[in-house]
């Protein structure tokens, strides 16, 4: 989902075979673009991204609209639109020394 785009609503492409462009963005603003069919599992995108950055996919959090992506999510099930953004961040760990 993009911010502040209420006046730019486009008709949705409902063809499940039609690819859409998805942007994966880190908290530092680095962007990687993916073209993916609407019925393709986003886990494929996650794996490709992790491979691209050379990290274990389990160590990265993929979020769409603030929600963590699930194994079976696809652009169609999430009602994603052309140019939507997936946020990516590292797992957070905090504590104190006992």
């Amino acid at each position: 989902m993009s911010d502040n785009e209420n006046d730019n609503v486009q008709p949705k492409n409902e063809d499940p075979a039609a690819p859409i462009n998805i942007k994966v963005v880190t908290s530092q603003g680095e962007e990687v673009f993916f073209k993916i069919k609407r019925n393709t599992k986003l886990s494929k995108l996650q794996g490709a991204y992790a491979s691209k950055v050379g990290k274990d996919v389990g160590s990265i959090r993929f979020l769409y609209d603030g929600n963590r992506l699930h194994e079976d999510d696809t652009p169609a099930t999430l009602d994603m639109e052309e140019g939507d953004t997936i946020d990516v961040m590292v797992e957070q760990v905090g504590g104190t020394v006992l």
Partner: protein
Amino acid sequence: MPGCFDDDDMPELFPDDSPDFHRPDRQDDRLRARFAPPPPYDCDVPPSYPDPPLYEDLRALQGGSSGSGFSTHRTPVWDELLISSRDWLNSLRSNSTGRTATLASQCLDRIGQLPPDELLDCFSSQSALTTTLCLELLGDHWLRDEHILAGLEFVEQRLGPESRTVFMPPWHMLNLSMYRQRAAGPYNPSRPRLREPAIASGHADIVVLPALVHGNHWVIFYVDTRAATIRYADSLSPCGAPDAAMLSDLRWWLAGLLPDRNFNVVEHTSPRKG
């Protein structure tokens, strides 16, 4: 999400049936450290935030707020987790009485039967809490965002479906920073995000937001939407002020959801260290 905890299953967080917990002749350092009363706070002494046990995989995409001097540790394996969990449960069983001791015994009896890395379906797929993460919690490992989210879900389940308290996930504050960088002006997403309809429609009186600061320490923001106040709790720095950028992002978000309110920070004193 259906609740999965019965009252009868609930251990007491600080068991009052265990008078031995603070006895000086008890020599279990770990237990004393976990349950000892907090030392008096000195607001003139700056807090010390320890280096985190950063696991190897977590170096990816690490944000700029992280401290320096990280050492890398491999992710604990199942057998090590079982040992540390059993240590903790044995300590608990030896140093407590009543229901707490009984629960510790029951856990010790069953812990060996746990399958590694299996999702616990009484928590949401968002928290993705696994048996492995549960064992981390029983040992001395630091808290991952899955632990924090599962803890919030636990409280949410206890409060019940009529609760007017909303818990945001532990990555929300980081998300806000990202949203704000992209937005040209006020917070105005093209469609509502997680939990936002309840807040914007006035169905949430309290919004609880955990956040990671200094790359290694969990703090919490507590927003009272009716009083338009923000409280901040940091167990390592109870007199400290919230991170200015985080507070600014939070106000930006709240202004987008509740534009008729001007949120002020009010003082909060952390009840205990940990």
